[in-house]
């Protein structure tokens, strides 16, 4: 059996670390300013209206939440499915997962039109609501991943790692399925209304979460010159490739199912051909930049850190494009009240609804991403979550 790796906190000189924190404080501060601006004047200062009711903050928030569930995959692979090669990076996987969820939830809560009533959102839960159920799912996910992380770090609790990991895994599955079905069960909007959203979001979350995790892993290892073994790099590359492939498969299946069924062919045509910015973001952003390009990079014979890093960046960009198409495109397409009729009204029925994101919305969303990064930076400095070396001389290899 290989010897246990030595875990170490984020080091570096004090000044260098403080510079990093100061840098991360910029998006946080801008996000806070954006929040107070919107909170003071109301959502009238955003690009949202009574047609597009969820805007750019939701694009970021749902991306972060979806990525959060997927970022745990590495830890689950190590602790539930016995892939010991990932064991040294399991604590980082759990941390990134928690940080992403915190960032996403912060944006979701701060984008409420009555964010002053956050306490109401926490204390009054409608048991029928999938949205409310998700509040329980979020809390449970945080708790189960938190316990799992604690068991990983606390030597006396090490023997309970597997049960804790299984609980976190089941909770992860519940949370991402619930998030997908939030769209899938929405029968009033043509872009949604498909249970394929559940498996599709599981694939998306795995791709986005793994991409974010790998980027953070490489960033930390680059920051301190901690070596990463070729074996781990190869495994991460393959895993990301599988997740990106699965995402592409479900995206194509979803679009095909919408096109194939006569009742949803028009909305499929909108997404695929006539949707302007949404069509461009679907083909160029989600499918090409977020799917085909990273797959091409990952399928190369040699696994290089630069290629995997580039693939991760592309997957994240593609993921944001996908969220924009799903969320904004899903609302831009008009709700059909009378199938077979041409509709028009003073409330913009039958029209494609325009939407231009405002600067405060984007800043609020980036603030959530900044919060995620800040949590990771602070936690890595405070806790020994990553081994000194990730090459064969240190960590056990499967």
């Amino acid at each position, binding site marked *: 059996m290989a010897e246990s790796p030595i875990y170490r906190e984020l080091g570096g000189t004090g000044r260098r670390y403080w510079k990093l924190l100061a840098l991360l404080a910029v998006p946080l501060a801008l996000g806070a300013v954006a929040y107070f601006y919107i909170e003071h004047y*109301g*959502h*009238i200062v955003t690009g949202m*209206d*009574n*047609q597009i*009711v*969820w805007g750019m903050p939701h694009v970021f928030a749902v991306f972060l939440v979806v990525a959060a569930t997927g970022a745990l995959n590495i830890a689950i692979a190590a602790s539930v499915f016995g892939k010991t090669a990932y064991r040294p990076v399991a604590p980082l996987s759990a941390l990134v997962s928690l940080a992403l969820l915190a960032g996403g939830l912060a944006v979701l809560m701060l984008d*409420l*039109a*009555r*964010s002053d*009533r*956050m306490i*109401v*959102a926490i204390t*009054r*839960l*409608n048991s*029928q*609501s*999938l*949205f*409310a159920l998700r*509040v329980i799912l979020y809390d449970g996910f945080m708790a189960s991943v938190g316990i799992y992380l604690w068991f990983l770090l606390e030597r006396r609790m090490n023997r309970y790692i597997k049960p804790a990991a299984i609980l976190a895994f089941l909770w992860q599955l519940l949370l991402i399925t619930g998030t997908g079905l939030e769209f899938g069960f*929405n*029968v*009033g*909007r043509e872009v949604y209304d498909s249970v394929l959203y559940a498996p599709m979001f599981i694939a998306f979350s795995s791709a986005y979460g793994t991409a974010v995790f790998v980027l953070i892993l490489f960033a930390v290892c680059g920051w301190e010159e901690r070596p990463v073994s070729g074996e781990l790099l190869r495994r991460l590359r393959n895993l990301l490739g599988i997740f990106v492939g699965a995402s592409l498969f479900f995206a194509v299946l979803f679009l095909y199912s919408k096109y194939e069924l006569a009742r949803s062919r028009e909305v499929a045509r909108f997404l695929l051909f006539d949707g302007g910015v949404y069509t461009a973001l679907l083909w160029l952003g989600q499918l090409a930049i977020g799917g085909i390009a990273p797959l091409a990079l990952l399928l190369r014979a040699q696994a290089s850190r630069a290629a995997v890093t580039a693939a991760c960046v592309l997957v994240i960009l593609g993921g944001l494009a996908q969220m924009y198409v799903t969320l904004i495109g899903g*609302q831009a397409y008009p*709700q059909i*009240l*009378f199938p*077979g*009729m*041409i*509709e*028009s*009204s*003073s*409330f*913009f*029925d039958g029209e494609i609804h325009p939407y231009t994101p405002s600067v405060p919305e984007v800043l609020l969303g980036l603030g959530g991403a900044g919060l995620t990064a800040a949590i990771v930076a602070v936690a890595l400095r405070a806790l020994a979550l990553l081994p000194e070396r990730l090459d064969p001389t240190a960590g056990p290899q499967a």
Partner: protein
Amino acid sequence: MNADANRGLGRRGFLAISAATLGGVMLAPGIRLIEIAAARAPEQAVSRRVRWGLLIDTNICTPGCDDCVKACATENGIKDTGRPRTDPQWIRKLELNDRRSGRTHSVPVMCQHCEHPPCVDVCPTGASFKRADGIVLVDKHICIGCRYCMMACPYKARSIVFEDVTDQNPDVPRGKGTAEGCTLCVHRVDRDRQPACVEACAKAGHNAMIFGDLNDPLSEIAQRVAKYASTQIRADLRLNPGVRYQGL
């Protein structure tokens, strides 16, 4: 002896009076509550036996007429800010053109007061709720402005208030950041009056809208629904709206 008897009587009497008083104090409010409840049970005010609904005759409703829309805005204090995309609309006129036959219709659309309202299903706090008599409302005090009801409503019947609301109708409280939609003029219905849109339509002599209790076989709306073919918007969703359309 006399003194003893007085003492004994006094103790017993004291205990008896105390017990009676205590019992009275404890029971009286309950009896009073029963009395109040018997006088006017909540079920009598808002009863499950009632299902309020609207029947809209699209053969009569004329294109370009928006008397109902104007009456709704006046009744509920909805003002035109000149920013139609963010202004709330509780009721709107949809102009329809059949793609195959070219036949046109003009129909007012508002909250359809579904039996199984998706807005109520998704609302995280329970602010969206359905009254026993079928009217779907928003509790403005616990609405957190998440806009999920707007995402879920298949009829585009919910709006959110984007700007400060001034000169409100005290019967119709509204507030920035909260969701809202047609209340079927619940404040009028509870006083045995018709919704403002129905009243305006009748006042103008159109009589294209009928309001009433769908569960009362003697009501005009129930009799019309029983006699003539009527449709529900997106009946395929099986939400069983309380608003029906004739002539579509």
